[in-house]
C-alpha cells in the first residue's frame, strides 16, 4: 500500500498538459470564484481593486497549477495565494496607505486582563435590527489581520488548522487573533449601541440588555 500511495503521489507531480491544466482549473478553482471575490473585496474594500486581485490570484493559480495536488483543499490553496498576493504585491502596487501595525494593535489588547466582560445582548430582534447594518462597517474598520480571521472563520467557515496554513501562523495565534478581533468588534458594536441610547442594566456584567 505505501508503494501505491507513493506512486500515486509521483503521478500527481507529473507536469500536466494544457488540456489537463484547464480541466483541473475549471473543476477545482472556478467553483470558488464567489468566495474569492468576496474575500478580495473585504481586503481591498474596492470593487475595482477586488476584481484585479481576483484576476491576479487566478492567473497565478493557473501558472502554478502543477503544484496543486488534486483532492486537496483547492479553496484554501486559492485563499493562501490571494492572501500572499495581497500582502506582497497588491498592497504596494495600489499604493494604499500603510495598514495598522498588528503588533501595535495587539499590544493594546494583549494584557491578560483584557476586558473579557464586554458583551452585547443581541437576544432581542429590535437590537438586532438596529445593529445589523453596523456589522459590516465595524468589520471593515478592523485592521487587516483581524478582518482576515473574522472573514475566514465566520464567513468562509475555515477551521483553525486551515486558517493557520492560509495565514502562515501557528494555530495558537489564529485562536488569539480571532479572540482579539471579536473583542474589538464587540467593543465597536457596544459603543454604537450606547450611541443609540442603550445602557447596561447591570454595570457589573457590562451587558447591554433591553
Amino acid at each position, binding site marked *: 500500500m505505501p508503494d501505491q500511495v507513493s506512486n500515486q503521489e509521483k503521478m500527481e507531480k507529473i507536469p500536466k498538459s494544457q488540456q489537463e491544466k*484547464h480541466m483541473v*482549473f475549471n473543476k477545482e478553482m*472556478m467553483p470558488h*470564484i*464567489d468566495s474569492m*471575490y*468576496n474575500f478580495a*473585496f*473585504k481586503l481591498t474594500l474596492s*470593487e475595482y481593486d*477586488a*476584481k484585479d486581485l*481576483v*484576476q491576479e490570484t*487566478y*492567473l497565478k493559480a*493557473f*501558472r502554478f497549477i502543477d503544484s496543486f495536488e488534486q483532492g486537496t483543499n483547492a479553496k484554501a490553496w486559492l485563499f493562501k495565494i490571494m492572501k500572499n498576493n495581497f500582502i506582497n504585491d497588491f498592497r504596494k502596487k495600489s499604493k494604499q496607505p500603510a495598514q495598522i501595525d498588528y503588533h501595535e494593535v495587539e499590544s493594546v489588547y494583549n494584557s*491578560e486582563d483584557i476586558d*473579557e466582560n464586554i*458583551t*452585547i*445582548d*443581541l*437576544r432581542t430582534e429590535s437590537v*438586532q435590527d438596529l*445593529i*445589523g447594518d453596523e*456589522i*459590516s462597517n465595524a*468589520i471593515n474598520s478592523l485592521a487587516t489581520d483581524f478582518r482576515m480571521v*473574522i*472573514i475566514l*472563520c*465566520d*464567513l468562509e467557515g475555515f*477551521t*483553525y488548522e486551515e486558517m493557520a496554513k492560509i495565514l502562515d501562523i501557528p494555530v495558537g495565534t489564529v*485562536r488569539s487573533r*480571532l*479572540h482579539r478581533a*471579536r473583542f474589538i*468588534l*464587540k467593543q465597536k458594536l457596544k459603543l454604537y449601541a450606547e450611541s443609540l441610547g442603550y445602557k447596561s442594566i447591570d454595570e457589573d456584567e457590562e*451587558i447591554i440588555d433591553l
Partner: protein
Amino acid sequence: MNINEFRQILQLVLDDEATEKQIKAFHEQISKNAEYRKIYEVEQTTHLFIKQKISRTNTPSNLIDDIRSSISKL
C-alpha cells in the same frame, strides 16, 4: 474553571474546535453555573448574529469571462 478559562473554551465550542474533553467540561459548567450559562447564551447569539450579518458582495458578471480570457492568452 475560572471565567477566563471558561471564555477560552467557549470560543472553541462556538467555533466547533473544542475537544470532547473540553465540551464535557463546558457543559458541566453551564449546567451548574447560571452566570456562565448566561454568558454562553449571549455569546452564542452574538456569534450567530455576526455570522449571519456579514454580507457577501456579488461577483461581477464579467469576472469569470475576463479570467478565462486572460488565461487563454498565457
